[in-house]
């Protein structure tokens, strides 16, 4: 195949073979079990300043040749594109691999144990497990292989007009905790029998599920492609303060138990740890080879060949216990989970997000009562500049609403604008 590709100025082949399983449950019972078998190839061809990209399923030499024939016909008609393959072969592979994640009996046992731990009638959720083999080859002579496993259990419970949601994520099935059921129930109990609350400025504590959603969005904004395309408020802010000095955010493709950890990115560049924000100062955008060349820096090993993206996001900063955080709030709100984070203007960061699970009012250092119908309506940069502390524990969060896994804590943020319907 390589000889066929020598006529191009540049190429990347990324092959993947993946098996994914899912158990879906609701009303306290398992309803559907699913399996996906996926063999695919991404083929990027670059010649005379022009780039074409083919997604091929169940690839073989005949299909690759067909794609190349199509490329020959189309190349003269496409507009020029920038394309640079990044370099960096310092592969680190300390991540966990566990082929047993796909054992259905174990998956079922984890789901049922968590439902028992939830101890509520109305329980819904999903458990996923996957194993993938990936192989990359490019025109700079890189050839590398990797294999990954991952699993997560996402459970939501309902009780007393409230809900709670918790997840457990790991690369190993034995680390999936049945405790998620009890954790979701505790969140639902915190927000039980909710009442309406006045809108205005509140000090808020975002629980890890909620904070992960904010940080996942921030991670997406740190992609150099998002910055260039008008999808980010981080444009021209490298070296500037974009968060509180109490917050650092980094991306890691090498996190031992990070469910999106990879040995190399889609171009074959070694993944690593990339500081995005250090003590509130924006240090780096996330780059692939092309965006790095356009910005005059080195790839950070975050390809997506079209758009770089985070692998696993990790937050660090000033640490306090949850109890200390609550004690320090005179008038505030704790929010268990959010969804529908939507931006009015990506380039300014004006946004709102809806509280979804377990929200409660805090008065004079005590959690008082469940509340409902609230939304955070603020500016993401302003809000993160007002972050005061993170809780001591940190948990990997990934579920349906959160695009990238985040190792998240509780976050105490002062003076956040809360609105209601």
């Amino acid at each position, binding site marked *: 195949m390589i000889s066929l590709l020598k006529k191009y100025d540049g190429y990347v082949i990324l092959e993947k073979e993946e098996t994914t399983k*899912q*158990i*879906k*449950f*609701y*009303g306290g*019972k*398992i*309803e*559907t*079990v*699913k*399996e*996906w*078998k*996926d063999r*695919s190839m991404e083929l990027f061809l670059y010649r005379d300043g022009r*780039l*074409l990209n*083919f*997604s*091929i*399923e*169940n690839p073989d030499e005949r299909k690759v040749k067909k794609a190349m024939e*199509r490329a020959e016909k*189309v190349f003269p008609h*496409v507009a*020029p*594109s*920038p394309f640079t393959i990044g370099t960096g072969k310092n592969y680190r592979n300390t991540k966990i691999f566990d082929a047993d994640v796909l054992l259905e009996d174990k998956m079922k046992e984890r789901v049922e144990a968590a439902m028992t731990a939830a101890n509520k009638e109305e329980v*819904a959720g*999903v458990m996923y497990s996957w194993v993938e083999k990936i192989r990359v080859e490019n025109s700079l002579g890189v050839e590398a292989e990797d294999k990954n496993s991952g699993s997560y259990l*996402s459970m*939501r419970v309902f009780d007393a007009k409230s809900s709670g*949601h918790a997840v457990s994520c790991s690369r190993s099935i034995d680390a999936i905790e049945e405790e998620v059921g009890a954790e979701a129930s505790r969140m639902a109990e915190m927000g039980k029998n909710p009442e309406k609350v006045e809108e205005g400025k509140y000090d808020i504590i975002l629980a890890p599920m909620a904070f992960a959603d904010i940080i996942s969005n921030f991670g997406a904004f740190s992609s150099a*492609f998002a910055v*260039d*395309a*008008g*999808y980010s408020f981080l444009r021209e802010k490298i070296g500037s303060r974009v968060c509180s000095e109490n917050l650092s955010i980094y991306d890691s493709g090498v996190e031992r138990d990070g469910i999106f950890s990879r040995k190399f990115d889609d171009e074959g560049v070694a993944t690593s740890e990339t500081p995005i924000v250090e003590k509130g100062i924006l240090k780096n955008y996330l780059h692939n080879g092309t965006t790095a060349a356009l910005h005059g820096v080195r790839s950070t090993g975050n390809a997506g060949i*079209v758009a770089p993206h985070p692998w696993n996001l990790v937050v660090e900063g000033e640490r306090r216990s949850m109890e200390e955080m609550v004690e320090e709030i005179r008038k505030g709100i704790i929010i268990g989970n959010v*969804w*529908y984070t939507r931006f*009015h*203007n*990506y*380039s*300014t960061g*004006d*946004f*709102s*997000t*809806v509280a*979804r699970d377990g929200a409660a009012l805090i008065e004079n250092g005590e959690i008082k009562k469940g509340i409902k*119908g609230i939304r955070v*309506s603020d500016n993401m940069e302003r809000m993160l500049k007002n972050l005061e502390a993170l809780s001591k524990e940190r948990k990997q969060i990934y579920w*349906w609403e959160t695009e990238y896994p985040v190792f998240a804590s509780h976050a105490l943020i002062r003076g956040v604008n809360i*609105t*209601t*319907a």
Partner: protein
Amino acid sequence: MDFQLDEGLAEYGLNICRAKYVEIRLERRIRNDIMLVNGVMRDNNVTENLGFSIRVVDGGMGFYFSNIVSREEIKRGVERAEKMARIGSKKVGMSEERMEEGKYGIKAREAGMDEKMEYLHAMDAEVSDHSRIFSYTDEVVEKLYVNSEGSKIKSLIPRTYLYYLLTVSEEGKTEQMNREFGNAGGWDAVKEWKVEEFLRHDAGFLSDLIKHGEKPPERGDVIMGPQITGLIAHESCGHPFEADRILGREAAQAGKSYASPALLGEEFASECVSVADDPTIPGSYGYYLYDDEGIRAGKRMLIEKGIVREFLHSRETAYEMGCSSNAAARTTYGKEPIVRMANTYFMPGDYNIEEMMEEVKEGVYMVTFMEWNIDDMRINQKYVGEEAYIIKNGEVAGIARHPAIEISTFDFYRKVDAAGKNLEFYPATCGKGDPMQGIEVSTGGVDLRLRDMVIK
């Protein structure tokens, strides 16, 4: 039309399956995505998908997908789906329906790459003074569906779609506008979108908003245009009327619903409000004639003159609720069929926009939105206007800067006092399902007027 999928392979799967119910879907998709960022092409992708999925009901439900299309893999898929269906403890059933054999599709002209490039660069040139991104997609999807009750449906649907995000920066401030255009059909629909006119309008409006935008009144009447009301029909009527949400099947993902079977036949909205969902509108972005369980589609009346008439059903939810499917089961490539909307819209009323405004002493007219969201019971919703105007004494009196409406669904539907004649449809990609299934829909709306609203 070029139907290529192998019926023999699908029939083989049906024949070897011993379960009570089995369905097999073969799917082929050819797609081209092109992205232009600030005038520079950053992606030109050609995707070819070919795969099959098998769903078995035998106690619980089992689902298997593979993109290795062979008899051996079909056999493995049937065996796996049969086994997986027996793991669940929840008893799954399917409503009794009339099975049909059918074949339909849309003939469409495919554009050459040079034609697409020329068009996209021409659109880009309209706003080359500003930051902008264009994302274009065309695709052709062929499906072959068979089930063990005798259904056999073949379809071939092409779709064409364009999205842009425009950022205008002046005086140290920025404003953004995004729009979507799309049809079931080929390249010939593109010229009818008149994208260049929207681009010119948006660039001019955003500049005016930066320079002349005013704080909206804190209270007043609100008229919302079809782009916003279409979204509201989709989010706060269509989604909560999806029966799988009502039953709790999506509770941990896309959420639940304020609706319950007790709502059927009840007065829910003011008399001038009717909401329908119709997959069969020719050329619409959410077009289909048979759903992904082989059921013939038709128009569904969700709310008729304020009264709740029907929910959206698959065969599974219809069985649970003791009714018939209304052909709302849809699936994207490689995923299970679940309850979805198609083209959901507020039906036209008697007013034109001048008549509506005439009766407004003070208020706003919201034409487009950027930010919006809604809670997972579909009650607490927010829409922020981007193109919006201040109304005083029946006339437009200025540009309103980001008027926001936060309102409960119940209040919204009761407060509507006038519906416009002007029905317009907007393409959208609706997200639901786990794994996420972004599916083509359109949101349709007319001008709606609501009295005495809090405006933020």
